């Protein structure tokens, strides 16, 4: 609402952060009936800044998944299931690491098996994004590659790190996921499906 007496105004603190654009709204809302709004604006402001430059600032300021998605009723099935399973997986990998620290290999193995059992259901949530699907698949392949052996401490740590990353960034891109595949390989895990490796090394792939 403009004032009729012109003065030099201070910047108004009630200026909305989300501008609606130049379109002049015209619709009306009838009494007693629930109607959609006359204007809806959904905005994202990004400057493409490099994360490494702002890492320190980000860690203290950034929104967590809970803060970004605060309404329990608004979650999609995939999102809420993935967060639940990832939470369970993180707990199990922590228990396994604790067991290794107290030299209880049997408990560590049991906890890692429980983690492995979560992965197929987690893979069903791959509609969240290609990066998510890639990483869950790589964990499944890593377990398969171990052929029943208990992962060593470094491998457990790396798997736990991947689960934490997925829990924090379930919508990560494929290139971000690929970086994690390299990290899994660096601790001696094979994050690629055995069938793919067989195919790539066969004559069929050369043709």
């Amino acid at each position, binding site marked *: 609402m403009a004032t009729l007496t012109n003065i030099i105004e201070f910047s108004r603190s009630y200026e909305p952060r*989300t501008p609606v654009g130049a379109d002049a709204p015209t619709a009306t809302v009838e009494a007693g009936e629930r109607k959609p709004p006359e*204007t809806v604006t959904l905005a994202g402001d990004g400057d493409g800044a490099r994360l490494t430059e702002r890492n320190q600032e980000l860690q203290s300021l950034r929104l967590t998944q809970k803060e970004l998605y605060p309404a329990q009723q608004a979650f999609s099935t995939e999102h809420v299931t993935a967060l639940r399973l990832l939470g369970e997986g993180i707990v199990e990998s922590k228990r396994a690491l604790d067991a290794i620290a107290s030299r209880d290999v049997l408990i560590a193995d049991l906890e890692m098996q429980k983690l492995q059992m979560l992965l197929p259901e987690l893979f069903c949530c791959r509609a969240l994004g290609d990066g998510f699907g890639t990483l869950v698949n790589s964990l499944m392949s890593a377990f398969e590659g171990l052929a029943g052996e208990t992962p060593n401490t470094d491998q457990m740590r790396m798997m736990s790190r991947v689960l934490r990353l997925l829990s924090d960034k379930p919508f990560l891109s494929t290139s971000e996921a690929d970086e994690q595949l390299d990290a899994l390989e660096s601790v001696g895990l094979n994050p690629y499906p055995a069938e793919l490796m067989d195919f790539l090394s066969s004559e069929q792939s050369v043709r």
Partner: protein
Amino acid sequence: MWRSIQEKYPDIRIVTVEPSKTSFQRGKTAFVVELKTARINAVDPEKSWMEEIPKVARDFFKLTIQHLEISLCDRLGLRLVYFKEFKDREQAASAFHAMDLVQVPDGKRFDVDQHPVNQQYVLRWESEKKGALVQCRAETRKTDWDPPIESVRFWGPVHREQNGIVVDIDYYTVAPVEVGQLDMGEWSKHALHVISRDIRYLFKE
């Protein structure tokens, strides 16, 4: 980028193409990408559109982030503007008064006998991470438009006054969000839920 958006929505049409801003339109929905901001703006959306918005938002922002190689969003925002029309300015003012949002002294004030009109009520909640601005106001909208001489055969002049109450809610993030954390479809559903849950205090439900 626009080509890939066009693949999803073939009926989209071009509105503005400038180096710093490109905008397209599909029905009553505008898609805008400009320096530092990408935006979807819908005027008079149908009820069904409100259900469709998460899907449209997911597609549009995902493609924008992917093609412009954005790694961090400084801010996300969802703004809803509602308008309820009344017969005249006084009726809109008395409806606003009945909401009991502000205390208005009785009697003559500033040498004016009449009750206040075009009232406004504004509240902002803001933390280091998120914020919301709620505005409620009685508003008079005037449109005075005369068509250019070459168009008078097709359009008549528009001289119209509308009086009503506007409820304007802007829900936004203050802290940065990494793109790996973000699905705009999911976020818009959460934002819509939070707005419709918390705005009820205005109407004393």
